[in-house]
């Protein structure tokens, strides 16, 4: 199916992939439970001073004082449910972080994009969202000369733009082409997502939302208006839905041969 208007997009699995029911038994039920659980799902006392609402709970969550160093935030993307032509996640990210199209496609930032892959032998086609993979051993951080590219203790890979000199080594090093350089002067950035000319940026896994106990904007929109293909959670917590799902399903990371151990997992790819 094609989807030109994001608002009316109803995402269905690509024809060449197994039908929804066969493809992901239990996923729908699991997702419902995951969403329904809402604020009641887990209020985990992380440290004596920090209480982080893991999921749901609305916007009234108390601001946190520090991240959870034991967590490993990650994503699980069910490619079978990622609809052809659907780009809800992309537009949600643009809206949340303010990097929308400025009419310069060659230099516009791209935090998340839809990629179409095809098996040349079978002809099977699939679409999947690709963003910063939040590697456990990020090559961008390895090559950064100033320490601006770094991995937070909870696994989120970020650019500290106060330190970034815009050399773009990290863009060269990233095997996923996940990073963008800002070429033009910007005004009216989002207060929680600072962006500026001369620095490199990429998906932050909506770190400002994660820090207040919410889920990334792409996951939220995929679950509400998209195909429900994305899941966010703590991979280090064996009780979390994402960890259980990664344990029970065969999932893969993009280019696992590189050994960078991305935090983004894909199933039915």
């Amino acid at each position: 199916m094609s989807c030109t208007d994001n608002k009316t997009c109803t995402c269905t699995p690509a024809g060449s992939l197994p039908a929804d029911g066969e493809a992901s038994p239990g996923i729908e039920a699991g997702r419902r439970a995951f969403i329904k659980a809402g604020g009641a799902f887990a209020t985990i006392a992380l440290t004596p001073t920090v209480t982080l609402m893991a999921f749901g709970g609305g916007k009234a969550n108390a601001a946190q004082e520090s991240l959870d160093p034991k967590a490993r935030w990650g994503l699980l993307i069910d490619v079978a449910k990622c609809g052809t032509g659907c780009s809800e996640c992309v537009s949600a990210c643009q809206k949340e972080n303010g990097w929308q199209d400025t009419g310069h496609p060659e230099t516009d930032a791209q935090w998340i994009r839809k990629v179409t892959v095809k098996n040349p032998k079978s002809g099977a086609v699939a679409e999947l969202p690709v963003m910063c993979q939040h590697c456990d051993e990020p090559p961008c951080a390895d090559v950064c000369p100033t320490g601006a590219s770094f991995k937070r203790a909870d696994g989120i890979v970020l650019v500290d733009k106060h330190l970034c000199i815009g050399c773009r080594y990290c863009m060269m090093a990233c095997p996923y082409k996940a990073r963008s350089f800002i070429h033009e002067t910007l005004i009216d950035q989002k207060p929680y997502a600072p962006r500026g000319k001369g620095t490199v940026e990429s998906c932050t896994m909506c770190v400002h939302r994660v820090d207040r106990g919410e889920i990334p904007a792409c996951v939220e929109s995929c679950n509400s208006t998209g195909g429900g293909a994305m899941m966010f959670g703590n991979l280090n917590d064996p009780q979390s839905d994402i960890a259980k799902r990664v344990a029970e399903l065969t999932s893969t990371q993009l280019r696992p041969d590189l050994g960078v151990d991305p935090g983004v997992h894909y199933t039915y790819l």
Partner: protein
Amino acid sequence: MKQWIRQVLATALLAVALGAMAGISWPGMASAGEESTQVAAVPAPAIPEAKPGTECVRDPEFMRRNHMDMLKHKRDLTVHEGNRLPEFSLNECIACHAVKGDDGKNVTIADSRHFCRSCHDYAAVEVDCFQCHASRPEAGDTALQSSPHGMNVLALSEFLKGVQE
């Protein structure tokens, strides 16, 4: 002979110069005293009031001297350690010190009435924060409409200790 003439000429010139200087400075000094020199200097900035009902984390005297170090410390805590407490955050400064423009919207740093600019222009210190950061609160964002901070003394002293390190 020539040396004698030179000495006379130099003395005369000095006398004329002193006389001229005295002529200019005497009337001013006599009439307005110290204030006249203030008028000639750059006028002190009109610093906009903060949002009514809000209270800063410290007194203005302290903030004028130390806000840059506090912001720098808080920025590292936020970016690297995920500290999202509103106290000391740039967004909170911006929310309390927003200045309304002629169109009723909060002005950006491009406007000389902006809180940060009013002082930084006077001090001739360029402020780079807003090359990346939003210089005004987002319209309709109620999360940033700050109430009095009610900082407890312990939290403040802990933070300031971090600033000094």
